[in-house]
């Protein structure tokens, strides 16, 4: 945290993430489809990756030596698109085609349609395996690039994730980084104790706020048990994100893949979406969109900048 009055060292990233959150809300409201909670929890991570971490060329998306990024939690596609558009992969206006017929911006990422995607995802648990293959291939080819894969904590319920975790460790893929957007909520999940634990805004569900964690044990210990290096950070603190990614990138850091467990808040950035499971895939009403615009500091035109 910066002291009051002092300019944030990451003001540019904060601004991008603020606009990104608005683009998510505006696009999902206009398309009547998509997700809110996951894209918002991942927004700071995605923004940091695309604007400060990944070695990429938006005007040459197939550049062979680029770092690779796979959004394994593919249902957060609109969050990724909001960042890629700002980064120059395609015009921001194109977001209006999200989830429309013949769009390059599919509800779940489709690498055959949109240049710049390194995998087609949307069926949870699969992205890390592709990342393992890319990291292995990069090493066989002698290419000094990094592969980043973003998973959700809910996604880690898929058994396949752990097949990939084990093989990445076996092949000592130090050029592979898994980032877990650990927002602690999923589409429906389990009830927390009803009554006292239930949060305002979640009352539509008579059985608590669905905030009970899945029985994952100690995720850090599980990754470490498989032989990974684990960095735990606040996934909304740009300083921490950049520090962890730089640390993960260090070649001399050993022969282990790195997992960044990023603690995040689902629906982060708006008072009425934060921590509410119902916002997993809810469509904002016109009133909610207006409230979002004001909270995010976007002027009445609805156009960023």
């Amino acid at each position, binding site marked *: 945290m910066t002291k009051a009055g002092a300019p944030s060292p990451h003001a540019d990233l904060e601004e991008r993430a603020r606009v990104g959150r608005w683009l998510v809300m505006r696009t999902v409201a206009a398309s009547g489809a998509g997700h809110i909670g996951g894209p918002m929890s991942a927004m700071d991570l995605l923004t940091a990756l695309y604007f400060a971490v990944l070695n990429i060329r938006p005007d040459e998306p197939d550049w062979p030596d680029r770092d690779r990024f796979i959004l394994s939690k593919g249902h957060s596609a609109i969050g990724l698109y909001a960042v890629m558009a700002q980064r120059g992969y395609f015009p921001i206006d194109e977001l209006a085609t999200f989830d429309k017929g013949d769009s390059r911006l599919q509800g779940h990422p*489709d*690498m*055959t349609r949109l240049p710049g995607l*390194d*995998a*087609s*995802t*949307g*069926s949870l*648990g*699969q*992205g*890390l*395996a*592709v*990342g*393992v*293959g*890319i*990291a*292995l*291939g*990069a090493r*066989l*080819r002698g*290419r000094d690039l990094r592969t980043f894969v973003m998973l959700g904590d809910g996604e880690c319920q898929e*058994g*396949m994730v752990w*097949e*990939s975790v*084990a*093989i990445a460790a*076996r*092949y000592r893929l130090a050029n592979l980084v898994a980032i877990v957007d650990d927002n602690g909520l999923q589409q429906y999940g389990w009830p927390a104790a009803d009554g006292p634990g239930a949060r305002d805004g979640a009352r539509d569900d008579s059985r608590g706020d669905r905030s009970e964690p899945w029985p994952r044990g100690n995720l850090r210990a599980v990754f470490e048990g498989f032989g990974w290096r684990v960095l735990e950070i606040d996934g909304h603190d740009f300083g921490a994100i950049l520090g962890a990614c730089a640390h993960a990138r260090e070649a001399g850091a050993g022969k282990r893949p790195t997992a960044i467990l990023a603690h995040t808040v689902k629906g982060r950035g708006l008072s009425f979406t934060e921590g509410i499971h119902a916002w997993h895939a809810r469509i904002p009403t016109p009133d909610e969109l207006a409230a979002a615009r004001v909270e995010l500091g976007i002027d009445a035109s609805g156009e960023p900048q």
Partner: protein
Amino acid sequence: MRSQRETWADTLTELAATNEEVLVLDGDLGTSTKADVFARRHPDRFLQMGIAEQNMVGVAAGLASMGYVPWLSSFAVFLTHRALDQVRLLVAQPGANVKIGAGYAGLLTGLTGKTHQDVQDLAIMRAMPGMTVLAPGDEFECAAMTRWATDVAGPVYLRLTRDPTPPLFDDTYRFELGRVYPLREGRDALLISTGPQTSRCIEAADLLEVSGISAGVLHVPSIKPVDASAVVAAALGSELLVSVEEHSVLGGLGGLLGEILTTHLPRRLVRIGLEDCWGESAPNDFLLEKHGLSAARITERVMLELQGTPTRRNA
């Protein structure tokens, strides 16, 4: 007589000597699929993925995106069933250059039974957009298909069988995608088959000839794509068409022929294969007899059908 699994492994081993992009990923069945032959010769290009087929498919997709030509080594059933969603989303949909070496396909899997027999693979893989589906009939065709699949861009499913197969061709064989092979002419019936089952159909045609019945044999090694007009041309001369496959009668070669004929040449088609049932662990001869796939049972069936006798269901 050589087995397709040996031929496949030998061919890849030979190819890899000059093609540096060829990799083999094994789901810990290398001593069965014969990928161990490749591993001994090219240890740096053999990647043991352990007993985890879903991850193996994804890793292959990633390697393909880095320009490699990864071949998967496992049993067909673990690739088409257990890793189906990964094959669908990570290989077929993006058109990843992954080659599926599907060992132990069909019914004859060495006394392993229902878990290991894949008698739905053709139906499953054929329905997948972007997937090329091949079922070699013998070692020569298997070698040619292995070479072809390595060179062509995009996903290929290669249906490999376990046991030695009698030759249909010789070393002059050249594979052409989609082509069908009339191996014997006949007036009364046409046996249409794929994979090593074709050699049992030729045997059946010999037996039928002794009984005065002239049966042709059409070999269909390209399940997808297939030259439909060539199938129709071959079928024109026979009143009775019989599909014979080491596969369910639902959705495989019989299904494919039904689709073609319904559109282009409405004609009676009898489908021989597994009658929507599960396999079991038993000797090859027993399984072929039980499911109507032995030369003797095919012969019997054709004679019954030609007499207009009601179709006898398998016990």
